[in-house]
């Protein structure tokens, strides 16, 4: 009797369940395989700098001498600090410009005018997301670069040493800030929307104004979500390649001010990878940079999870 029903069950099961279930399960697991192989391949290329070329990882991270062929000043060296510093400073700068703006937009969309938010700003944000990075780069190059160049030329208090090409850290950060604002804004919108209506009602019922409610209840309550958006924005800024490469001047030296030329990890990869002969120190070092980018973007995810864990702890 029991066996009888077991047989019946398996017929149902195989025909109407097991087959489909196996396929989707396989593709779920496939994502793990894909990620692991991606990490493996990038890592194996990226590690060659240290294993094969015997460069020191410490030097790679903390030295600013990047000369893959070597010249009168010494043998080849691949210190990536200038690029790392460039990536960090340009992303931070972009974040500083973008975050207040994005949060304001998300507050407008959820609290000030949800109707306009949905009908007008939502599409606007989606379009900003959809604009390809080369187009951002192109507009940066044709509008922002000449503008900043004029600006630096006009400023009397800048001494002659200022970079007046218009290609600068600031230009890159401005372009990036437009590119990452949709990310921060839409995650913040989600975070604010996910708040129970209760908070708002409770605050209003106590005689709070809208601004008081936003500032003292809603934004603090949504803060973990907003931070997640900020980290995602940072990740996007860090990984952006072409738009940045087109406008920052690609100078292998620490920028002395935001008007100085700079270089980033993605930018140097974009510029030099095509030229680098595979297997040489230069090529390997570029792969190491790619590997570093990969590690950093994984770190961002871990940070986001930490933020998320904190949030669930509160609740």
């Amino acid at each position: 009797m029991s066996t009888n029903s077991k047989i019946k069950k398996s017929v149902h099961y195989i025909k109407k369940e097991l087959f489909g279930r196996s396929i989707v399960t396989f593709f779920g697991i496939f994502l793990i395989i894909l990620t692991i192989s991606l990490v493996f391949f990038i890592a194996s290329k990226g590690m060659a700098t240290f294993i094969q070329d015997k460069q020191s990882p410490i030097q790679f991270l903390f030295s600013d001498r990047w000369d893959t062929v070597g010249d009168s000043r010494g043998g080849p060296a691949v210190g990536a600090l200038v690029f790392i510093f460039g990536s960090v400073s340009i992303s931070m700068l972009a974040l500083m410009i973008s975050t207040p703006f994005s949060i304001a937009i998300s507050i407008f969309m959820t609290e000030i005018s949800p109707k306009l938010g949905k009908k007008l700003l939502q599409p606007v944000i989606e379009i900003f997301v959809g604009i390809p990075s080369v187009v951002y780069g192109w507009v940066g190059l044709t509008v922002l670069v000449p503008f900043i160049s004029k600006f630096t030329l006009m400023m009397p208090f800048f001494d002659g040493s200022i970079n007046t090409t218009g290609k600068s850290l600031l230009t890159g950060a401005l372009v990036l800030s437009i590119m990452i604002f949709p990310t921060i804004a839409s995650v913040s919108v989600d975070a604010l929307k996910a708040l129970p209506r209760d908070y708002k009602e409770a605050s209003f019922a106590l005689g709070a104004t809208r601004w008081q409610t936003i500032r003292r209840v809603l934004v603090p309550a949504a803060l973990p979500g907003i931070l997640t958006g900020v980290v995602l924005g940072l990740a996007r800024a860090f990984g952006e390649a072409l738009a940045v490469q087109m406008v920052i001047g690609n100078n292998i030296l620490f920028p002395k001010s935001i008007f100085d030329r700079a270089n980033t990890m993605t930018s140097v990869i974009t510029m030099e990878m095509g030229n680098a002969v595979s297997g040489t120190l230069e090529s390997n070092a570029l792969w190491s940079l790619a590997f570093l980018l990969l590690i950093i973007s994984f770190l961002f995810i871990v940070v986001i999870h930490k933020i998320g864990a904190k949030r669930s702890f509160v609740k």
Partner: protein
Amino acid sequence: GPSSKEDSISISGSSALLPLADNAAKDYMAKNAGSKISVQAGGSGQGLTQVYQGAVNIGNSDVYAEEKLKPEEAKELKDHVVCAVGIAAVVNTNVKVDNLTSQQLIDIFTGKITNWKDVGGDDMKITIINRPSNSGTRATFKKYALKGADEAEGMALKEDQSGTVKQTVSQTEGSISYLAFSYLDEKTKPLKIDGVVPTSENVANGTYPVWAYEHMYTKGEATGLTKSFIDYILSDEVQNNLVTKLKFIPIKDMKVKR
């Protein structure tokens, strides 16, 4: 791989040689229906790497393969010298200077001179625009114009390809860079070096020292479409017309050798 497709080949490498390779390919395809040739730049380093790796059929380069690849790799490549190209120092059109001595040029690129007034121009900051270290144009310029002196890396704006260099120089006040003759037009101003005008004639007769051979490398002997295309470029038809029209110097005109 690309070699499996008999009727289509791809070429990449030197941006200096791009105008010639590209135009010749167009003409060739127009004459030989069914043949497909794709040409892209990317720099000499990329051309050499990719042809060695079998990613493309022809790798264009401004420098000898031996200068970039390991000896055992370079050995596998076959060199086809198709022409020579001169490389000129160029400046933004608002720079009043027309001529620089070799030493001045070196001083500028190594960062010793940073203002045009020190070489007889207006009081204007010099902005150097450089190419990536694996560019053949840069290697040639460094070797023959700068006498091997190391550029002051940090001071330069760096541009990926010759096209960008041209554009940036034309847009940036007080800027200086270098371009293959094939990129010269009214947007930038070429400089005389030690009084010698950068022209094809001066390259051919040996008075202008900054030039390089243009190489088309193949992995092993060229065959099929690859071979006929290289033959086509070496033919009088191309050498006498397209090559000179694009400001390259036909091999047979070169009175000096390297």
